């Protein structure tokens, strides 16, 4: 029994235990502990992984002539670390107070935990697949496990989950088609056979494989134009579930792309693949898909009026950064892209937790119905502040480091337009996260929220921990970069020369220890001046005046409705929901075809006439002879 077998067995045991004691109040606590044990088992492999030695599984099957086996590679380990970390945090968050509250409002926390356990098992299986068949099987399992998690809330969430499912199954079928093509060409589904089959392929075949695999994996990642399902489906998942999905679920698509297109096929192959009749290569296409995935969803996030939707739309946009970094194929960019997976998971989960805490206390995540909660929920506010700094990619949080690496790479590799696209995305992010924190925590407190308290510890502790990670890995990015180096090596990419504070290379370097220390030093001086010099008087939050008039609590002097109207007006003509339109046009066409098909089966006459005509024609013709 290898360490990997132990991990997978533990994961399966977690699922079975969760299933059998889902009605108990301590179920969440138990699962949290079990995820913790799994995380330990994973860390137990870290030495081997650090030296780039995969941990194999002792289990293998031979089914219908297909060999199936599993192994934990550095790439898989990195993603598994994030998966289990997100699972611990989400399960913890859901375990006691939140779970009771959820049950009281008609939800089933046990079902949520079961769905979470399903997700973790299937994701671990996916990450450890060492052949295309195992990859596809666990890919489908991940899709359906996500569906279970999304649909577990019932109501409107089910509608969005069904919407997701159509995309997910379509993506799965594209991957299946790609795998079948490989199988027909090589007679095997091992990774080696796949790599061997690629060398003799015509450009057309290569494009087909790229579209099938890339398109299939892109669905889960929410790359444009396959992103429409994601925001609604993630946002309507109950609190901790949406944190888990937002943190890691959609990154499984990136994992697929990394494994199949980067590691097995190799980016160089696509750099030589020219789009017919254009000067663009397949790699350019990927990069621009990533760039548009950054810009459009980010500006859609800006227009959202619901905090969870806003975060979910950002989740799509941040995926674009990851792909953009990886597609650059150099040490800086790929390290940035990979690191952003980790960073995004940490701050996104913290942000979803913070929003869920507000929902837990106020019952709403509508940005037009909140405000001024900073003094009522200071821990949630701090978690959100740290989270949005990370999301916006500003120092001293970890999001800055990964984005900085990607910017550096874009400039070095000579892609100024892509660089501008990435910066535009960041600008949109900053604007939109300001709207988020302002409308929830700053500004005027609503009267009905006056007696609100901070969320309980079972919810704030995971937030605090995640925020600490967001800061710590921003201060000492080397902690994450040392996990990324073996991944880069495994993917066949150049390896970043990392240091504890950043990276060191001939062309440039980054030392976050220095950056953050000087920044904090500046803040400290400012704080000293503020507290030493200024005279401040504390007043009640509802005791306000504006324009020389006292305001009573019922007068809204600060608006959250229709935020950034000028910007929205400016951007609207550039993007008229064309993807929505495209999708509904396709659905309408399908409905038309479906109505036609139903027409065939509504009456029996067509069959009858056909048969009768055939018989009579034969009798006439045969009788004539």
């Amino acid at each position, binding site marked *: 029994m290898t360490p990997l077998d132990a991990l997978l067995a533990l994961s399966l045991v977690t699922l079975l235990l969760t299933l059998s004691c889902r009605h108990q109040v301590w179920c969440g606590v138990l699962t949290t502990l079990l995820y913790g044990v799994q995380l330990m088992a994973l860390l137990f492999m870290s030495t081997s992984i650090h030296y780039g030695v995969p941990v194999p599984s002792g289990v293998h*099957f*031979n*089914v*219908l002539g297909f060999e199936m086996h599993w192994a934990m590679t550095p790439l898989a380990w990195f993603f598994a670390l994030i998966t289990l970390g997100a699972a611990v945090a989400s399960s913890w968050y859901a375990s006691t107070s939140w779970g009771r509250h959820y049950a009281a409002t*008609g939800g089933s926390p046990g079902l949520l935990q079961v769905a979470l356990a399903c997700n973790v098992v299937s994701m671990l299986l996916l990450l450890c697949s060492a052949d295309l068949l195992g990859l*596809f*099987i666990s890919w*489908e*399992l991940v899709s*359906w496990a996500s*569906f279970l998690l999304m*649909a577990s809330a*019932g109501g409107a969430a*089910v509608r969005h*989950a*069904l919407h997701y*499912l*159509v995309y997910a*199954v*379509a993506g799965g*079928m*594209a991957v*299946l*088609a790609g795998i*079948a*093509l490989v*199988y*027909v060409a090589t007679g095997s589904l091992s990774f080696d056979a796949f790599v061997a089959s690629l060398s003799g392929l015509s450009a057309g075949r290569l494009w087909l494989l790229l579209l099938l695999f890339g398109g299939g994996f892109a669905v889960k990642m929410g790359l444009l134009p396959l992103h429409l399902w994601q925001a609604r489906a993630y946002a309507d998942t109950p609190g901790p579930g949406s944190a888990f999905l937002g943190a890691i679920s959609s990154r499984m698509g990136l994992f697929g792309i990394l494994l199949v297109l980067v590691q097995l096929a190799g980016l160089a192959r696509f750099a030589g693949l020219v789009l017919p009749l254009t000067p663009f290569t397949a790699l350019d296409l990927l990069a621009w898909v990533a760039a548009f995935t950054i810009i459009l969803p980010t500006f859609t996030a800006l227009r959202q009026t619901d905090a969870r939707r806003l975060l979910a739309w950002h989740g799509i946009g941040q995926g674009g950064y990851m792909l953009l970094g990886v597609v650059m194929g150099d040490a800086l960019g790929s390290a940035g892209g990979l690191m952003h997976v980790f960073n995004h998971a940490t701050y996104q989960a913290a942000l979803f937790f913070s929003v869920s805490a507000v929902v837990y206390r106020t019952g709403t995540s509508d940005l037009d119905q909140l405000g001024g909660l900073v003094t009522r929920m200071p821990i949630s506010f701090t978690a959100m502040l740290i989270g949005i700094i990370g999301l916006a990619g500003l120092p001293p949080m970890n999001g800055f480091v990964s984005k900085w690496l990607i910017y550096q790479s874009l400039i070095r590799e000579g892609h100024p337009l892509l660089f501008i696209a990435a910066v535009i995305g960041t600008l949109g992010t900053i604007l939109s996260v300001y709207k988020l924190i302002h409308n929830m925590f700053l500004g005027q407190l609503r009267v009905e929220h006056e007696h609100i308290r901070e969320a309980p510890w079972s919810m704030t502790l995971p937030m605090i921990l995640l925020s600490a990670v967001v800061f710590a890995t921003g201060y000492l990015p080397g902690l994450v970069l040392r996990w990324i180096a073996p991944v880069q090596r495994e993917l066949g990419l150049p390896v970043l020369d990392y240091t504890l504070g950043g990276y060191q290379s001939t062309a440039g370097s980054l030392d976050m220890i220095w950056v953050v220390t000087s920044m904090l030093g500046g803040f400290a001086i400012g704080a000293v001046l503020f507290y030493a010099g200024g005279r401040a008087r504390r007043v009640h939050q509802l005791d306000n005046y504006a324009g020389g008039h006292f305001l009573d609590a019922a007068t809204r002097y600060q608006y959250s409705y229709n935020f950034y109207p000028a910007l929205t007006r400016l951007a609207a003509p550039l993007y008229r929901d064309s993807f929505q339109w495209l999708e509904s046009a396709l659905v309408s066409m*399908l*409905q038309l*075809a*479906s*109505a*036609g*098909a*139903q027409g*065939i*089966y509504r*009456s*029996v*006459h*067509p*069959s*009858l006439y*056909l*048969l*009768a005509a*055939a*018989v009579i024609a*034969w009798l006439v013709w*045969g009788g004539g002879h």
Partner: protein
Amino acid sequence: MNAPVLMFALPLLTAFLLPVIDRLSGLAGRWIGPLVLVGNLLLGALAWPHLQDAPLVLAMGGFRPPLGIVFYVDRMAMLFAMGVALGVLLLWPAWAQDKDRVRISTLTMVLVTATTGLALSGDLFNLFVCYELAAISSYGLAAAGGSAAAGAATLRYMVISSFGSALMLIGIALVYQATGTLNLAQLAVLSDALAGPQGLIAFIFILLGAGVKAELFPVNAWVPEVYGAAAQRVAGILAGIVSKLALLIIVRLLVLVFRQPEAQQILLVLGVLGVITGELAAWRAQDLTRMLACSSIGQLGVMFVAFSIPGPAGVFAGLAVALHHMLVKPALFLLAERWGGALTRLPGAAQKSPLAAACFVLLALSLVGIPPLPGFWAKFLVVTAALGQGTPAYAGAVAVILAAAVIEASYLARVAAHLYRRVTQPLSANRQTRAAVTVATCASAALVSATLWLAPLGNSLQVTAAQAADRDSYIHNVFPQGVQP
């Protein structure tokens, strides 16, 4: 080793004696049919080891082929004969309608006789007789519910089916005119005589004729109406079992007699059209029974596509899909007995019958082809076999099958969402019958165990397919001393 003949003869005898037996003892009348089916299963199990190496060729009354009636019992035939016995046993229609039990049991036994004959017969004449017998008994069963809708639907079905039979007879006559024989092995020897346009026309006629029962597009328009109006058990038998046996005729003919590529192309095109129309119609269906009926058309389309692929790979894939569908669809139809009607009546059903709902979801997942359930492997075999042909037509068929899986997932997941929607008011959904839950659980357990023992099952099925696709050995087995011209 004449046990397979008994599998045909016993149900026939029972069918004739059943009214008398029931008059003597109601208890015996109730149980004789299921008992005979159990006997059939035992006979099949006893005969199975003898089929490992070579098929059995049984000449009735000692008249050697090509003169007499011949049963050709290979593994594929035996598999379907046992499938008939098992399927009908689980869905035994008389259990749902005790009032009419004698009539229904008799008709069911006739149907079992006919379908077993379809599986085992080695000549076209016998196949036609069995096909007609199956048709007539299925009219009776479909109308047995006694409702006006069932009567009207059955009447239309009867008219279509009669025209189909006429076409099939003309096709057989054409074959006889060209070759002078109806024995399949001798036809295989003389297949060159059918390579021309006359042979193709004969094939098309037989295809359309048998296609009425096999739910072949475009002669399948009766399907949703009859399945919707007839008792769900009968619908399950028609969709799950009779359709597969009608398909078997086409497979035998394709392998042995009609080997021109045009024949395969026609089957491919009609199969693809069946997938498209069936799944699209099911997508919009607002009624569970109708949805299942249309989905069954789509699944049969996949089987036609599979069997249109020349060689053992195609037969293997087709057999896998057919057996899988034979297991899943009857159980789903049985669940629709109580859950039929508008989908909007389903919410709360999972609260009332949690086990049945879980089984429905499992069966539906396998039907869509979600790994690692058997439905996925069946579909995977079809996809790889079709892509292995390397022609654009087959690649297009694969694209259609995969797209159809998306549509299928969409509507079946919608049903599952309805089933699991929680409601607090008095529930409109019906509680499942114990019989339906039992059968659905058995089918689900079979699916799960098939997943666990996939490797031996797959190998065994592969051998079966290779045997069925081997034309030379068919000829050799029937004429061990060589062919007398």
